[in-house]
């Protein structure tokens, strides 16, 4: 065999900030190796070429917020062997899912002089609400090294090694003194999935949950603890209603705290 098929990689954007796909470009040491291992056929950040599917691996960033995008994601799924979502927008609806607790028409009228020109769905929803997703990589933004791990895993037909444990575990590994125990700083680390490297506690601030809920999080216990530390009701609701406002356990907790 002298013609080896290189798997094709396509990157797609929905409602998002672009940060997760830019993480791929931030892999300065690995980018050219990735570009050698796969054929990057759609990546508007660095290429004007657009190649038709099918694609071996689709990386999807962003949430679904318009009728047009709800159609577009179906077409992408149809053309892709594997579909991996990258980031919190795609996994949970992102910060723009704060509209889900309000009236989107009112939101549009705050920003736009002619809200009737704006096509927006009432809710910002994750990709998995619309199509089958092979793997969700979490984070706002994702950790670029985890992205390399996920791409390698799919190229080699294995499951990605992404620990579902909490940020607390990363603090212990990094030798960071617990900010909540030692300094009474409110921290979402106990209920938030690892992956960032516990950067916020390492910089002496509390985790704000950008990687979303860990596996089986005890949000009620943390909420009670935060209340005990003097966090008022509004701040408590906002703590769980941030970048992962519509991730199941966080949404339920903010709704419980709101009552």
């Amino acid at each position: 065999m002298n013609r080896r098929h290189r798997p094709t990689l396509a990157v797609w954007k929905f409602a998002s900030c672009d940060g997760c796909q830019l993480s791929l470009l931030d892999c300065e040491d690995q980018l050219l190796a990735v570009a050698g291992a796969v054929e990057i056929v759609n990546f508007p950040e660095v290429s004007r070429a657009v190649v038709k599917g099918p694609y071996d691996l689709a990386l999807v960033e962003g949430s679904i917020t318009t009728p047009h995008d709800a159609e577009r994601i179906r077409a992408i799924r149809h053309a892709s062997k594997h579909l991996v979502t990258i980031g919190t927008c795609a996994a949970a609806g992102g910060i723009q899912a704060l509209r889900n607790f309000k009236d989107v028409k009112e939101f549009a009228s705050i920003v736009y002089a002619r809200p009737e020109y704006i096509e927006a769905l009432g809710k910002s929803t994750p990709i998995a609400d619309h199509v089958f997703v092979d793997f969700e990589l979490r984070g706002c933004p994702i950790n670029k090294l985890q992205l390399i791990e996920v791409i390698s895993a799919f190229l080699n037909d294995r499951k990605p090694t992404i620990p579902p444990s909490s940020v607390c575990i990363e603090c212990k590994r990094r030798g960071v003194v617990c900010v909540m125990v030692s300094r009474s700083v409110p921290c979402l680390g106990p209920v938030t999935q690892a992956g960032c490297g516990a950067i916020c506690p390492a910089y002496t601030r509390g985790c704000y949950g950008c990687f979303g809920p860990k596996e089986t999080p005890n949000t009620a216990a943390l909420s009670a603890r935060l209340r005990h530390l003097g966090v008022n009701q509004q701040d408590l609701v906002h703590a769980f209603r941030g970048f992962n406002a519509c991730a199941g356990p966080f949404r339920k907790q903010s709704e419980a705290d709101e009552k």
Partner: protein
Amino acid sequence: MKSEAINLDCLPPVEGETALFVSMEDGSVADLQLRNSEPPRFFEAFLRGRNFSEAPDITSRICGSSPVAHQLTACHAIENAFGVTLEGPLRELRRLLSCGEWIKSHASHIYLRQAPDFLGYESAIRMAKDHPAGMDRALRLKKTGNQILGLLGGREIHPINLRIGGFYNLPARGELASLAENLKWARDAASETVRWVAKFSFPDFERDYEFVALGNPDEDEYPFNEGRLISNKGLDISVREYDAHFLEEHVRYSTALHSTLRGRGAYFVGPQARYNLNFDNLSPLAQETARAAGLGAVSRNPFQSIIVRAVETLYACDEALRIIEHFELPEHPAADFRSRAGIGYACTEAPGGLLYHRYSLDINGAILDAKIVSPSAQNQKTIENDLRQFIPANIHSPKNKLQWQCEQLIRNYATCVSCATH
């Protein structure tokens, strides 16, 4: 009468969704629309009711390519409402953070988005095969910017270390010093970049723009996070007068609001605006290198923005080295402040140009109202006006060549439509 519609769908490499619609009649442009269909996320709406302390982290999510610019602008606007002004080492550290984002963003824009157009490659990855040394330089330059962001910000995208009043945590002196060696390499690499891009061939294109940027008439600093709003046509106002002079208009075909200067129309923000209005405040090395590359103190051809970006990259390396060399660790990571009700305003220079944030806050520190105007939104009308002049002049080019040249023209500007719409 010959009428023709040109549709250019999706114009990568830009961040987000844009399409260009042009209809021609008898060789001139009858209608032209830069259609931005990026879905709005309604930041100004959901910021209402959130605490002031959340604004930097929330607004960074407007843009994955210049999150620090949004964080800094939010911090400065809210500090303005509280009557806090940072001085000394905290101010210097914020300038250093901006240097990091400029180096990273400019290196990406020059090498990954603009250079492939000039050299005739459809993508930076194809270009890398024929120009491996150039791509190595690009990635290491970008990495140098990212190292500053990683150290001072905690991570490169959506850093976590900025707060109202200063920072959460200060770097150790030794950590800052460790950046210097790479920055010295980066300064040389940026000079090399200036020389490399200055040799490209530039379409003959100029318009009589109104350039708008921050400027410090009394200081000898190139602007990052402070200054007055000035232009080459006599604008000279304080940042809090922004809303009295600039208008945002909602056009049917775009989710990005179009900005104009009241009574004067479209204006130009970005590296060239900064350069033209602040050339004398660039470091001597940056000025010398620009002149040696044949770039005067004023550059009006938007295709030459690639050279200006390279000069600014060189300046950012120089400035970062100056800050690190003279740095004295402050006593506290943040200044004391008391929150109070009021309105705060700030403009900063994001890599792509002028960025404006305004917040009204209530007595409990909740945001009542927010306004955010990004560089890419401010340039929408200017880009359309460029295309109105460029297309008729080049209408006899083959269609695919014309399409590519229009894309190239758009990529002269900060192309972030996530920012433009937000």
